[in-house]
C-alpha cells in the first residue's frame, strides 16, 4: 500500500428506498492531489460525498482516513470535520444573516473568558480573506456578498480548518472565469501543502486544467480510476455516458442562415426596466428564433427576463405581445399570454420539493386553468407519463417526490412542466447549470427542436459555446444594461467576448 494515501473508501454500498445509489464503490485519495469525481447526474457522486461526510450512513464497506488504524464511520458532518474532511457544497451552506467573520468561525469562535472574542475573530478573518484575495469586509453580512464571494468564503472556511481532505462539490458553477482562476490558484496552493482535494464538477475543461486523477462513476457503480494523461476528454465522456461519445459538436444550429428579420414579432419590449436591477431596454423577439442573453454574472441577464415575465414587476416601459399592448403584473399574466419561465435557481425558484414528479409537472397548467377547473387524476397521470417518457426523466415513479431526483432530472421535470402549458415563448435561464453532459446535450437539442416547431425561445447560459450552438441572435448585457445585439457572422466566441467586455458594439 502506498503510504501517501490520505483517504480510502472500499466497497461502499448505499441503498435508498427503491434505488441502489452506490454499489461496491472504491475511492482512493492521495496526499497533494486534485482528484476529479466524475459522472452523470444520478451516477452517485453526491451520495458518495455524503456518505464520506456523514450526511448519509451506508450499509456496507469501510472508510479509512490517513492510512490510520481501523475503519472510520462518520455519523455527522461535524464528525467528518473533526477527522479533517471539509466540504464546500454546490449551494452555499452558510448563514446569510451572519457576518463574514462569524461564518468563517462559526462553531469554533475564539473565546476570551467564555465570551466570543470578536476582535480576534474579525482580525483573523480579515487575514484569511486577504490571504485568499477575497475582496469583502470581515464584518459585513454574508448576504451582502455576491454568490461567487460567498462560495469563496465557504472555501476559505474549509481551508482554515486545516483539513486533510477538501471536497469541492460543484464549486465553480456560479463563478465567472476570473474567479475560477482564483479558485484554481488556491487549489494548487493547497495541493502543494499536501491537502487531498476531491473536485466534483461538470466542466470538462476545468478537470483537465487542474486535476491529477479522475474517478468515474456510472449508475452507482465504479467505472474506474485513471491518471489524467491516460484519459483524453472523449474517452472520459464515453466512460461517463457508457456509450460512444455523442459529440456535442454534432449539434449545430443548422438554420443559422435562416433570416428571422421578417418573422412576426412575438414580444416587443419598449423601455422595460426596473430600478436597481435592469435599466430600461428595448427588445424585439420574433417567432421561431432562439435569442440568447449573454453577459457576465450579475450583468442583468436574469433580471431582464424576470421583468418580461413579470416575476419582478417592471416600473417603466410597455410590452406588446403580437402587436397588442399587454400589462404584465405577475407571472400568471405572462403565462396567460403564452409565456413560460424556467428560473435560474432551480432549488429556490423551480422545484416544489415535497411534491411528486406528477404534481410538479402539472402545477403550472393547473395554475393557468384556475382553481375551479381541477385536472382529473387520469389527466394528470397521462401528462406526467408523457413528459417522463418524452424527456427521459429518470425517476422511480411519477409519485416520487421531486427532491429525491438528481439535479438534471429535476430540471427536466421543470421543462416538462412548462412544455405542458404549451407555451409560445419559452424563457430558459441557465437550464444546463450543474447538469451532466448527456442531459446538457439533450436540452440543447430540445431547444432547437422546439424552435423548429415554431416556439420562440430565450436562452441564457454562462457557457458561450452552448449559446453559439443554440442561438440565432444574441443580446449582450453589461452592468444591468443591454448594450447591444449580435447576429449572423458577428456570432463568434471572439465577437461575444468583445461585446461583453465593451468597446465596438456600444450602440445604445
Amino acid at each position, binding site marked *: 500500500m502506498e503510504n501517501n494515501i490520505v483517504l480510502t473508501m472500499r466497497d461502499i454500498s448505499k*441503498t435508498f428506498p427503491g434505488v441502489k445509489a452506490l454499489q461496491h464503490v472504491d475511492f482512493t485519495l492521495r496526499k497533494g492531489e486534485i482528484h476529479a469525481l466524475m459522472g452523470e447526474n444520478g451516477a452517485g457522486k453526491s451520495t458518495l460525498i455524503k456518505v464520506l461526510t456523514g450526511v448519509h450512513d451506508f450499509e456496507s464497506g469501510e472508510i479509512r482516513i490517513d492510512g490510520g488504524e481501523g475503519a472510520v464511520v462518520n455519523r455527522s458532518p461535524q464528525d467528518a470535520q473533526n477527522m479533517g474532511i471539509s466540504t464546500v457544497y454546490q449551494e452555499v451552506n452558510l448563514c446569510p444573516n451572519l457576518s463574514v467573520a462569524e461564518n468563517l468561525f462559526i462553531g469554533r469562535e475564539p473565546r476570551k473568558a467564555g465570551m466570543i472574542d470578536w476582535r480576534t475573530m474579525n482580525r483573523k478573518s480579515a487575514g484569511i480573506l486577504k490571504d485568499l484575495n477575497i475582496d469583502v469586509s470581515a464584518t459585513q453580512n454574508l448576504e451582502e456578498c455576491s454568490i461567487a464571494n460567498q462560495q469563496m468564503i465557504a472555501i476559505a472556511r474549509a481551508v482554515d480548518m486545516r483539513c486533510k481532505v477538501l471536497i469541492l462539490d460543484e464549486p465553480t458553477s456560479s463563478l465567472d472565469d476570473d474567479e475560477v482562476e482564483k479558485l484554481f490558484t488556491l487549489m494548487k496552493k493547497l495541493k502543494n501543502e499536501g491537502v487531498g482535494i476531491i473536485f466534483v464538477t461538470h466542466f470538462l475543461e476545468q478537470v483537465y486544467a487542474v486535476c491529477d486523477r479522475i474517478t468515474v462513476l456510472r449508475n452507482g457503480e465504479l467505472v474506474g480510476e485513471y491518471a489524467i494523461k491516460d484519459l483524453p476528454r472523449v474517452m472520459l465522456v464515453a466512460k461517463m455516458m457508457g456509450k460512444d461519445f455523442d459529440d456535442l459538436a454534432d449539434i449545430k444550429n443548422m438554420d443559422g442562415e435562416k433570416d428571422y428579420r421578417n418573422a412576426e414579432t412575438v414580444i416587443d419590449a419598449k423601455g422595460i426596466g426596473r430600478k436597481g436591477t435592469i435599466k430600461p431596454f428595448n427588445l424585439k423577439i420574433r417567432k421561431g428564433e432562439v435569442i440568447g442573453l449573454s453577459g457576465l454574472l450579475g450583468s442583468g441577464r436574469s433580471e431582464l427576463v424576470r421583468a418580461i415575465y413579470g416575476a419582478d414587476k417592471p416600473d417603466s416601459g410597455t410590452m406588446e405581445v403580437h402587436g397588442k399592448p399587454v400589462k404584465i403584473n405577475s407571472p*400568471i399574466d405572462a403565462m396567460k399570454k403564452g409565456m413560460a419561465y424556467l*428560473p435560474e435557481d432551480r432549488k429556490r425558484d423551480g422545484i416544489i420539493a415535497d411534491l411528486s414528479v406528477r*404534481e410538479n409537472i402539472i402545477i403550472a397548467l393547473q395554475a393557468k386553468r384556475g382553481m375551479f377547473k*381541477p385536472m382529473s387524476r387520469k389527466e394528470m397521470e397521462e401528462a406526467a407519463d408523457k413528459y417522463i417518457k418524452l424527456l427521459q426523466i429518470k425517476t422511480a415513479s411519477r409519485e416520487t417526490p421531486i427532491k429525491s431526483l438528481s439535479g438534471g432530472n429535476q430540471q427536466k421535470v421543470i421543462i416538462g412542466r412548462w412544455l405542458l402549458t404549451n407555451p409560445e415563448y419559452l424563457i430558459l435561464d441557465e437550464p444546463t447549470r450543474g447538469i451532466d453532459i448527456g442531459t446538457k446535450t439533450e436540452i440543447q437539442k430540445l431547444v432547437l427542436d422546439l424552435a423548429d416547431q415554431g416556439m420562440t425561445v430565450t436562452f441564457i447560459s454562462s457557457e458561450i459555446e452552448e449559446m453559439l450552438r443554440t442561438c440565432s441572435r444574441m443580446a449582450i448585457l453589461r452592468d444591468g444594461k443591454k448594450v447591444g445585439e449580435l447576429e449572423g457572422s458577428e456570432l463568434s466566441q471572439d465577437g461575444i467576448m468583445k461585446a461583453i467586455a465593451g468597446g465596438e458594439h456600444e450602440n445604445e
Partner: protein
Amino acid sequence: MRMNKSFDIKRITGMRLFMPIVCLLAVLLINVITTPGFFKISVNNGVLYGYIIDVINRASELVVLAVGMTLVTAASGGQDISVGAVMAVAAAICCQILSGGDVSTNAFQNPFVLAAIVSLLGAALCGAFNGFLVARLNIQPMVATLILFTAGRGIAQLITKGQITYVRVESYKLLGGYIGKCPIPTPIFAAVIVIGIIHFILKKTALGLYIESVGINATASRLVGLNSTMIKFLTYVICGFMAGIAGLIASSRIYSADANNIGLNLEMDAILAVALGGNVLGGGKFSLMGSVIGAYTIQALTTTLYAMNVSADQLPVYKAIVVVVIVTLQSPVFKKAVANLKIKRSTKKLAAEGGNQ
C-alpha cells in the same frame, strides 16, 4: 403468498394515516382497560348516552378548529393561535344580537339566522385580519395572530359590555344539544358537515394542491402562476370562519356568551390535533383526516383522564405525558430509525436468500 402478505403490511404501515390511527386506538385501548364500560352506549331519555358518545360530542368544536388550523399550517407554515379568542368573539356577537343588547333574554330579539350570519362574518373578518398580516405583510403567523389572541377576548367583552349574555331560549340550545327526537347530539352533525364540505372543496377544486405548493415553496409557486399571497390569506379566512362555527356550538351548549371561557386554551389543542395527525407544522403536504383523528384522540384522552378522576387542574400534566409519547412516535428521528431497521432486515433477508440460491 407470504410475500404478498408482507407487501400488504408494508403498504398499510407506510400510509400517512397509519400512525395517527394507531395513536387513537392506543388511547381507546387505555380507555377500555381503565374504564370497562367505555364503549357502552345506552339510551337515556331518548338520547344516546355513554363515554364514547361524550368523546365524539365534546370533540366537535376541536374538530372544526383543527380543520381550519390544518389549512393555515399547510399554506403558511405557521399556526393561528387566535382561534380560541375568535370563538369567544363569534359567541359574543351572536348572543348580543339575539338578546337585543340585554344581559339576558327569554325570547329571540332578532332572527337567529341573522345573528349566526353576522357572527360568522365577524369571525371570518378576524381571520381576514390575521391573513392580511401574515400573507400581505409577511409577519410571522405566531406573532400576527398573537394580536387577536390577546385582544380577542377583550373585544368579546366589549361586545357583551363585560357581562355574560344569556339566551334562555330552547331553540338556541339546538346547535349544542339535540334536534327534536334525534338521539345523536347536534355538534356531531356539525363537525361531520364541516369535514364533508372542506373535504369536498379540496377534492373538487385544486385548492389542496395550491395550498401544499405554496406551503412548500411560495416563491416557486408564484413563478408557476399561483397567487401565493391570496392562497395564504384565504386559508386564514377559512380558519377564522371555522372558529366562528366552533364558537356558536360552544355558546349554544351553555346558551350564553362567556367571553372569558369559551374556547379557552382550545387553540393549543387544535394545533396539537394537527401535529398528532402527522402534519408537519412547518407547512407543506397535509392530511385533513389526520388532524380530525388527532382531534378525537385528544378529546378521548381528556375524557379518559376525567373518567379516571384526575382533577381539571392536574389534567395538563397527564396530557403532556401522553403527548410526548405520541409526538416521539411520529418524529422523523424515530421514523428514520424504524426505516433503517427495516432496510437492515431486508438486506439481511436478501443476503440469506442469495445464499440459498
